[in-house]
């Protein structure tokens, strides 16, 4: 019964069928083996459950750690409850366990408590802290898993072997307290590890952002230099023109205009003054991401068109999530554009009735697969990354009811369109 509630703690929701399998397995093994082997049967149940969860979930170490944590949590509270009950009713453990009515009410209260709290903790872990997103260090997860596994192992070993040796309940109670302390220490350790990882991540993130903004500023300074040069040329042009006018040389003026002035106006739009338009993006993190991607694309020889005609303030989405999605889209766009002859990428953001529209368009070879398949896990046309990236986008957008995502290919452009509705 207890073991089942730990399911609440898993990062991804399991289907009803899988839950049922886990529950019935736990129930059956405990029921049958307990009569034959006594408490030692817990080993069988426990190992079986770990295997089941291993097969049912994708992120193995994280899921198993969560599960083990849940197990420790429930067992610890089992001891606490027993102790409290004993205290309230002034009863010895042994008397208590033979008193059927009391035992059943006790079990019911305990189960309700565990069911509710594990659900709450699971919610807090995965929705609020989003640990699956930050705890990506594989070795750290492995270490946590092994520590928890050993702790649980000793836990079970202790009470099953103790029973066989004929410990009285007092000794087992003492053991319980020791393990409770151990458990608290583990929780504390895990919490410390968590905060340290978070801080490290934030630091890394800030450094990357800083670096991107530095490159961006450099580019802006460059384009300012071009502007200054133009200002200088511009004065020269005006002087020459006034010369033509003084001499009333209309033909000369026409020729000069066609040969010198028109080309300048064209050259201007092609130069890398384009990045200056990013000043319309008010969110620094987003600006740094976009500038770094755009600078890189221009260096790769891709023709960029950036359209940001109005200030972009409200994102209608978590800024980190949006950055991740845009990063994936732009990487894909670049990769696909590089395969084509023209190598064009267009980027555009605007508001339409407070809804934020993001459009990315790039030249691409005609797809050899159905476009809807791009979002599924299996497909990857070139290398591994492309399909998986879009699958991740789909996973992120699942949490946003206000997001609409359209994908089209119309020769020769591949277009990703993301609409983020304003939440009223």
């Amino acid at each position, binding site marked *: 019964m207890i073991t089942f509630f730990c399911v609440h703690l898993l990062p991804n929701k399991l289907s009803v069928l899988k839950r049922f399998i886990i529950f019935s397995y736990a129930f059956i093994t405990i029921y049958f083996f307990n009569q034959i082997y006594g408490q030692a049967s817990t080993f069988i149940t426990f190992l079986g459950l770990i295997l089941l969860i291993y097969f049912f979930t994708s992120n193995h170490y994280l899921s198993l750690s969560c599960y083990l944590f849940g197990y420790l949590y429930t067992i610890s509270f089992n001891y606490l409850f027993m102790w409290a009950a004993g205290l309230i009713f002034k009863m010895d453990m042994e008397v208590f366990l033979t008193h059927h009515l009391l035992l059943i009410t006790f079990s019911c209260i305990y189960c309700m408590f565990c069911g509710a709290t594990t659900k709450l903790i699971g919610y807090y872990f995965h929705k609020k802290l989003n640990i699956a997103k930050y705890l990506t260090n594989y070795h750290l997860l492995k270490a946590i898993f092994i520590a928890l596994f050993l702790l649980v192992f000793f836990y079970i070993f202790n009470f099953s072997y103790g029973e066989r040796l004929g410990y009285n309940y007092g000794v087992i109670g003492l053991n319980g307290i020791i393990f409770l302390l151990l458990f608290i220490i583990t929780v504390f350790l895990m919490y410390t590890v968590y905060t340290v990882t978070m801080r490290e991540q934030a630091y890394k993130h800030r450094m990357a952002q800083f670096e991107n903004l530095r490159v961006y500023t450099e580019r802006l300074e460059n384009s300012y230099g071009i502007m200054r040069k133009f200002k200088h040329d511009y004065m020269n042009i005006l002087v020459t023109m006034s010369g033509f006018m003084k001499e009333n040389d209309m033909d000369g003026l026409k020729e000069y205009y066609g040969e010198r002035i028109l080309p300048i106006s064209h050259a201007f739009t092609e130069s890398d003054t384009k990045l200056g338009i990013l000043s319309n993006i008010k969110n620094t993190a987003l600006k740094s991401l976009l500038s770094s991607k755009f600078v890189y694309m221009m260096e790769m020889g891709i023709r960029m*068109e950036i359209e940001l005609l109005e200030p972009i303030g409200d994102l209608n989405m978590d800024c980190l999530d949006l950055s991740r999605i845009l990063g994936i889209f732009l990487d894909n766009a670049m990769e696909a554009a590089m395969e084509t002859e023209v190598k064009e990428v*267009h980027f555009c953001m605007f508001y339409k009735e407070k809804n934020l529209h993001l459009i990315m368009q790039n030249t691409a070879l005609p797809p050899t697969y159905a476009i809807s398949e791009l979002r599924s896990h299996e497909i990857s046309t070139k290398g591994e990354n492309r399909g998986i990236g879009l699958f991740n986008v789909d996973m992120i957008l699942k949490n946003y009811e206000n997001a*609409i995502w359209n*994908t089209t290919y119309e020769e020769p452009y591949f277009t990703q369109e993301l609409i983020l509705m304003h939440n009223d």
Partner: protein
Amino acid sequence: MIHIYLCEDDNRQLNCWKEIIEKHLLMSSTESMLYCATSKPEELLSMRRRSNTTGLYFLDIDLQSNKNGIELAQEIRKYDPRGYVVFVTTHSEMAVLTFRYKVEAMDFISKDETETLPKQICSCIQNAERNYKAQLDSSNRLLSIKVDKDSLVLDQNDIVAITTSNDSHKITVHTKTGIRQISGSLKEFQATLNSGFCQCNRSTIVNLKHVLKYSREDALLLMNNRETYSVSIRMLGKVQKALNNFYPSITN
């Protein structure tokens, strides 16, 4: 018949456009007419309010007024959702995707290339007229879809399939060129679709017109955009019947 509107703050350019358009209208046998040529957005809007004919709008972006061309076009869309907007602008103000996606502009013309300007304007008028005629013919099979406050118009013939998304409030429309999400439910849409559509499992409605192959052994429908859809056991008979009705010549 289409009404043509012009809005450009520079009077010399405005007159130049006017001449080009009048010349074109004279030369071609068309009922379209130049309805309004102005330098003030407000004037154009008040003219628009009085008319209910579909319009073709040639707009400058920088109007030296409290509204720019894009804002004006958005305003126009309120009165004339199906009108044709063309932006006439300098190269540096060009924002192709914004024009197309924000106000569904039909086209854009670059002012810088003065030589080709008349030709571009004329071809825009012709395109708009052609499109207007085509739409009159096909208005009965268009599926108008509400997307929040905007509505999106899709030709039912272009839809390959409609499926539920993993988010219960949205459905996905699959066309030959891609996929788009729309808020709503399958049930709501089923009522508005024509007889060429058939539900093949709990979460999918397919357009029989786009079925390439039906493999009865695997109960799979292969569509002409490379997608495959499974047919649920409950729907097997229905799908077979619908296919037979739709393609009476092919009896398998």
